[in-house]
């Protein structure tokens, strides 16, 4: 009896995760496992035809040209977008954290792109900005520079999608802002007395204190970038020459255009494993750069 009480006391935290556990078992586990099952079949949802266990779907990801290219493009996209977005979001959040008149208005304005999301208006506008007669190219032309043809040059189209996502930096900014608000002002005051410059203060006080949140943004932005779908879907449809065909665009096409659930699921699980590895590396790297206030040492 005593032992049981002790066990209960030790595991009291379990109570708090019960809602999540139920949700996980009821709403997530089944879809999750069924997609894993599909990935090892050549299951067509409508004909219901399946020849049993196969590894072909997984082999295809690494051998078929279109899929291989999509995988590489996805990596390129993620490594291009995530750093740009994080630096930009942190920089803007840092400025918006100052007490300036009208700062509320600015915060709202900066969040507007994220509210507009993937709406039809964004698709129309983004093309109008980057197309051959668009504002961007006209602007460069005024400076005497012949800017790349973003819409039709396979080397540049991905950057255009990337800029769209950096432009929609609102969520990352809000999270940074919330973190910056948590940095006690006393610390800056103490540093100022010691004669530390603002730059030093930023890198030796602000950044270390918000590392848990930088870590959060890094992981979630990586996940979002690897799963990016809307940008290429509404603007380039994967072109030109497949240069913006990201994995999730292929997954979508396989799942909802060809109903090749096996293929779609296998591609999704490859993405899953990649993200898993990246996240495990990030979690492992935490002890070298993330500072947690709740750690006792």
């Amino acid at each position, binding site marked *: 009896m005593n032992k049981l009480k002790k066990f209960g006391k030790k595991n009291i935290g379990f109570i708090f995760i019960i809602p999540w556990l139920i949700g996980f078992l009821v709403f997530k586990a089944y879809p999750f496992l069924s*997609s894993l099952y599909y990935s090892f079949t050549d299951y067509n949802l409508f004909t219901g035809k399946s020849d049993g266990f196969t590894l072909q779907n997984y082999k295809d990801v690494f051998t078929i040209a279109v899929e291989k290219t999509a995988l590489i493009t996805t990596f390129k996209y993620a490594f291009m977008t995530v750093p740009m977005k994080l*630096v930009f979001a942190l920089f803007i959040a840092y400025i918006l954290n100052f007490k300036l008149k009208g700062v509320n208005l600015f915060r709202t304005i900066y969040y507007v792109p994220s509210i507009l999301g993937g709406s039809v208006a964004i698709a129309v506008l983004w093309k109008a900005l980057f197309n051959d007669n668009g504002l961007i190219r006209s602007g460069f032309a005024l400076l005497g520079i012949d800017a790349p043809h973003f819409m039709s040059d396979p080397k540049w189209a991905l950057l255009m999608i990337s800029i769209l996502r950096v432009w929609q930096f609102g969520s990352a900014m809000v999270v940074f802002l919330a973190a910056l608000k948590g940095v006690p002002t006393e610390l800056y005051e103490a540093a100022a007395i010691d004669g530390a410059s*603002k730059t030093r203060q930023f890198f030796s006080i602000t950044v270390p204190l918000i590392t848990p949140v930088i870590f959060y943004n890094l992981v979630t932005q990586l996940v979002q970038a690897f799963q990016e779908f809307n940008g290429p879907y509404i603007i380039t449809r994967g072109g030109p020459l497949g240069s913006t065909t990201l994995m999730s665009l292929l997954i979508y096409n396989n799942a909802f255009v060809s109903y090749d659930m096996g293929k779609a699921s296998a591609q999704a699980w490859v993405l899953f494993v990649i993200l898993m590895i990246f996240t495990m590396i990030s979690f492992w790297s935490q002890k070298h750069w993330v500072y947690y206030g709740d750690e006792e040492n």
Partner: protein
Amino acid sequence: MSIENNNIETSEKTDITPKADIKKSDKVEMTPVLGKKSLSKEAKRANRNLMVRRGINTFLRYFVLILVGAIMIYPLIWMVGAAFKNNSEIFSSMNPIPIKGTLDGFKNAVKSYGGNINIWKSMLNTYSYVIPQVILTVVSSVLTAYGFARFKFVGHDILFGLMMAMLFLPQVVLNVPQYMLFNKFGWVGSEHYLPLIVPAAFATETYFIFMLIQFLRGVPKELEESAQIDGCNVFQILIKIIVPMIMPAVVSCALFKFMWASNDFIGPLLYVKTPAKYPATIFVKLSMDSDAGFDWNRVLATSLISIMPNILVFFAAQNQFIEGISAGGVKG
């Protein structure tokens, strides 16, 4: 890279707590810089220099803010202008100001479809499931995050891993099995939006749990320990100490959920089967017929009307961040 440099330049010689701040917040002590004010002639000169620098810094900050702001707000301004244009003008000019203005877009936007649904009703529909979703998501996520961040229990690490893993599989491949599940429950076409609301009560949004955990982990345990000594139980600690400490994060969760849920298109499309129950995201697209064509000004006008609450909610919720200072600043 250049962005970062820019950041350093502007922030180099600035003071982080200018006057406006001191007037507002009562708890902050006088800053050392101001405390040393007017001691000697040199100090006076230094002070004047400081004022000039401060002026320049303020100017630079506003310059950056307005420049970036213009890029951020331009699409919204364009949308407003375009909602007053006709189709051919929308696609032939980037100029937000309509040449031949028309009110048709807004007139048609408020028209109803056979008395079944109109823009206002669709917006009400949206919020009738978004608000429960937000509340349930925040509550269940806070509980789960608290459980994972502050307690060790049997299977903690494995369950944590499983939870994180839920982030990594694209929703596209989960849609079909999930639909089949809800269909078995008889929830498809539910007039109470059950497939959209119920999962929210069970912390199904890993993004938020993870975010709250990260914020929680930045908060030192000392306060909780002393509260425990004072006889608070784990629930009281959660409500009295933890939640106020991470209020900015909790508000962010609520905001994000609000924005994302009210922008969701595919969820309602799969699970709402009566036009009278359609949310705004579906309503906005109702008139879009790719074959016969449609009036873009109407689509843009409905989009504009339907995102207004989101903009207002964001504007209003910001004050929560400001209040957040007092909580975060407690640290000793």
